[in-house]
Structure formats: structure tokens, C-alpha cells
């Protein structure tokens, strides 16, 4: 009996999650201006589910502004040049994106992978890093421990975060996917949201390139309570959450952590 309930629950969860994805994708059909975003990465990943949540919320704004975002899963990077999507979201290694990046300088690539690159390779103008450089996470943990505190882990997001309407985002995501939002899903969500909000403000037909607008005029808080922005390496400056025993014990900003790690190096 217990086993049957478990199976039923499992199928219900799959049905709910699939319905959410299908509804999100179908909801994009009704509006006037289609704005395709390409996604490169695993469709069963938290990043993908986060991006789908971001798509739903982007279109919740877009329906009032006659903008219709479409998230399209892709595998061939050559499609970027052929189709010219408005943005590329990728959880692939940045090294794999290199050729596509250079061939399409007007298209922003939003990198949501956690794979580190050497600082000397960071300065591609149209590559934006949603997750902090791994050295920032290490630096945040070291800064926390430096004052004799308990061991803790620095992350982008945590399911128990409540401030700045984070609780509502966690609740929406859990309701739609039956998963807890974590750093991976937050980075997927944030990539779509920050791009869609930027496009809405800039206008899809604007003369100003989206790459420039993202760099200079981003107005996005990521439910973290402050203006996030891309630094000179195109890393998204943001508060990190310090976690101990599955609880948030501190918030530390990435500001200064990256520059401390990278020394005098700068893209400028």
C-alpha cells in the first residue's frame, strides 16, 4: 500500500512538473513579439528548471508589454550564427563556447556553469557569468572562517532564504517543480529574468546593443535585496549566502572578493 502511494506520488510529481514545463512553453504562443533565447545544457538539470521558472516570470511581465520570450533547447552551437537568438544561456564549459562567442559579438551569452576559467581568459565582452568565480566562493568561506567561526559553505542561493521576497520565489519554484531552489536553479532563473528585464527596458528593436545595456544599465536584484551588476570581468556581483548545517548564517557580497583573488588583472 505504502509502495503504491509512493509510485502514485512519483507519477503525480512527474505529471505536475511536465505540465509546468509544457504550460510555460505553450504560454509563449499567444503574444505578438517573439523573443527566442537559446539554452545549451542538460534538460533534466536544475539549471534548466530554473530557466523555465524564469521564463514563466519573464512572460508574466512580457504579457503586459507585448513581449513573448521563448526558451529553446539547443545542442548545436552553429545554430546561434544561423538563427541569431536574442541571447544564449549555457551551462556548458565556457571553453566550448569560445568560437560561437567570437562569431556572434552582438549576442549576449549568459554562462551559468560553475566551471572556472583562468582570469586571463575572462575578457570576452559578450560573455556574462551569472555564477561567481569559484575563487570568490572560496574567499567568502575563508572570510567567514577568518574570525574563528564554524566551518561553512558559500552558495548563491538557499531554499530557506526569506528576505527580499526570496521566500515567495522559493515557494513559486517548489510549487511548480516540486524541487527546492538551489544555486543551480537560481542561476538558470536569474539568467532569464535579468535578460528579459533588460530587454524590456531597452526595447527589442533598440539601437543600443543588449550587450552594452546588460553591462551598463542592468536593473535586477535577483531577490537578493540590492542592485546586481556585472563587474569588469563580466561576473555578476551579488550577495552570497553562507550556509552551516543547512541554515543561512551570513550574507557576504562578492564585491572585493574577486579583485582580491585576481590581483592587478583587469579587463579594462
Amino acid at each position: 500500500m505504502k509502495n503504491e502511494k509512493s509510485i502514485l506520488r512519483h507519477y503525480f510529481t512527474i505529471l505536475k512538473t511536465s505540465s509546468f514545463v509544457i504550460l510555460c512553453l505553450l504560454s509563449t504562443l499567444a503574444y505578438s513579439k517573439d523573443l527566442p533565447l537559446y539554452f545549451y545544457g542538460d534538460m533534466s538539470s536544475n539549471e534548466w528548471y530554473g530557466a523555465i521558472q524564469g521564463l514563466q516570470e519573464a512572460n508574466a511581465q512580457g504579457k503586459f508589454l507585448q513581449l513573448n520570450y521563448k526558451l529553446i533547447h539547443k545542442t548545436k552551437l552553429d545554430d546561434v550564427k544561423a538563427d541569431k537568438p536574442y541571447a544564449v544561456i549555457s551551462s556548458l564549459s565556457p571553453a566550448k563556447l569560445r568560437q560561437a562567442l567570437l562569431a556572434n559579438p552582438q549576442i549576449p551569452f549568459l554562462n551559468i556553469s560553475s566551471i572556472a576559467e583562468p582570469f586571463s581568459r575572462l575578457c570576452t565582452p559578450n560573455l556574462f557569468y551569472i555564477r561567481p568565480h569559484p575563487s570568490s566562493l572560496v574567499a567568502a568561506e575563508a572570510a567567514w572562517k577568518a574570525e574563528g567561526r564554524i566551518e561553512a559553505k558559500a552558495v548563491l542561493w538557499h531554499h530557506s532564504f526569506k528576505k527580499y521576497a526570496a521566500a515567495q520565489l522559493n515557494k513559486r519554484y517548489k510549487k511548480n517543480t516540486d524541487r527546492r531552489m538551489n544555486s543551480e536553479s537560481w542561476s538558470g532563473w536569474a539568467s532569464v529574468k535579468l535578460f528579459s528585464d533588460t530587454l524590456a527596458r531597452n526595447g527589442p528593436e533598440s539601437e543600443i546593443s543588449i550587450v552594452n545595456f546588460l553591462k551598463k544599465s542592468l536593473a535586477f536584484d535577483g531577490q537578493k535585496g540590492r542592485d546586481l551588476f556585472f563587474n569588469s570581468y563580466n561576473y555578476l556581483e551579488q550577495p552570497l549566502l553562507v550556509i552551516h548545517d543547512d541554515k543561512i548564517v551570513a550574507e557576504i557580497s562578492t564585491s572585493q572578493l574577486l579583485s582580491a583573488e585576481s590581483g592587478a588583472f583587469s579587463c579594462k
Partner: protein
Amino acid sequence: MKLILAITAIIVATNTMAATNRAFVSNERSDSVSVIDILTNKVIKTVQVGKRPRGVGISPDGNEVYVAISADNAIAVLDPVKMEVIRTFASGDDPEAFAIHSNGNLYISNEEDAMASVYDPRTGALLATIDVGIEPEGVAVAPDGTRVAVTSESTNLVHIIDVPEHTIQNNVLVGARPRSVVFSNDSQIIYVTAEIGGEVKKIAADTGNLIKKTTLPDQNAKPKDVLLSRDGKNLYVAGGRANKIFILDAESLDHKNSIPVGKRVWGLALSRDGSRLYTTDGLDHQVTVIDTKSEKVKAVIKVGKFPWGIALDD
């Protein structure tokens, strides 16, 4: 219809019962309302109202006080004289803020439903629902009764809605996390606060066009409530974690003065004659009373935990 609404507004304004001279303060974490005698600045009663009280307002005739009890998905109705809950009515999921039309109807932001709803508080009847952006928050009714504005916090929009049609006339992109909105006295302009970036925008209500914007002169400013002085010349902005009230010139949005108050100042209310501004200071569990002429703090009154909203019956 619009003429009828305007006439109703005038009739209601001249047909109110004698004021109790009380302030009603919702305490978000005490599940209560503190009642303050505004002649003595003393708390005279604390009323348990329901879970997570936030938005608070008084009916146009002064006979009832409404409190959004968010976690109970309801509105509690208090008798301002007896200072007790006389009834509650269901108001949709997670009512946060609301504004009261001169015809007595409540325009409520339902945070979790991405919806604004219209209720008749006398009967508890749901009259209309309006789809808005994610996490709607601030609500304002134009003084002439012909429009309502609703901010959606996670969609960064302010929706300007026609009354009584309840159709959206304009959707205006504003700063990140818009919190509160107020109409000018002639109903032609709206002022919107956006928490992230400490921004205030002045927008033409009929076109949705941006007239001016400003950033508050304090990097800690996370503006929440916004109110206009009775003469329409000054804009009062609750600065959130800046722990200040910012006074802006309503025409130019130039910063005129800042008044330090308690921690995380959130809600605002102005006395009928405009001489006193009341603030709820959430983290200090207090209400601050400001003399608007001298722009000095006149009194500080301890209330319940995390005071959120405030309404005056004066």
C-alpha cells in the same frame, strides 16, 4: 459614470462620523493592532486581529477600520470606537496592501495570486479581479475615483487601471521592486517608489509617460511608503533601512530634507490637516510622530512587534 464617482467622492468626504482621534497600527509579528490616542500619543488598546496583519485603512464614513490579515487570507473589520474586531471576510490569497475607494470598495493586492481584487467590505462580496504582475504590493486610488494604480514587485511594473471598468489602461516599467504608489491631488500624476536602487519616479497617469525620476541621497535607502503633503508640494518617502523620512519637492523631485526616525521605516500616514506625519519603524517596534512644519520628531510611541501599516481616524 466617472462623474458619478467624482460626486460620490465629494459626498462621502462631507458625510463622515465624528472622528475618534485614534491611530490604528498593524503589528506584523504580534498579530495585533495597536490603537493610539493621537491627542496624548499613548497606546490605549492592543487588539488581536489575526495572523500577519499588514495593510490598514479606514472606511470613507469613518465607521470601520480594515486590516489585511495576510496569513489568514482575510480582512478583519474593527469598530474604531469599541476597538474590537466586529467581523472578518475572506479576501483571496495573501492580501498585503489595499486602498479604499470613496465608494467604500477595497482594492486589494493579493501577493501570491498575481492579482488585484475588488471587495465590497460591507458584504464581503468579491466584485472583480484584475490580473497584474507577480507579487503585487502597493495600491492607490486616484482622488477623483476614476483610476487605481497597483505595483507588482517582482515584475517591476505599475499597472494603471480604469475604474469602474477595471481594465488596465497602462503598464509602466519602473525601478526594481516597486513598493508603493500615490496619486497627486488632481489625480493626474502618480509617484512610485522602487526599493532596489532607492528610486522614486513621477509618471503621467493618463499616458504612463515618465516625467521625472530621482534616486534618494542615501545608499541604504530602500523606499517603501510614499505620501503627498496636503498642499501637494512635498512628497514624503519612507526610506526603509536608511532609517529616515526623505522629503522631496513634488514638482522637481529635488531632495529638500531628511528626518531620522526608527529602524526600517515602512508605513506612513498623514493627519487630516497635514500637520503631523506618522511613521511605522519596523525594527524598533515604534511609531514616530513628525511635525511637518518644523520637520522635527515630536513623539515616539512603542507599539507591537514589527509595525507595518498605519491609518488615522482624525
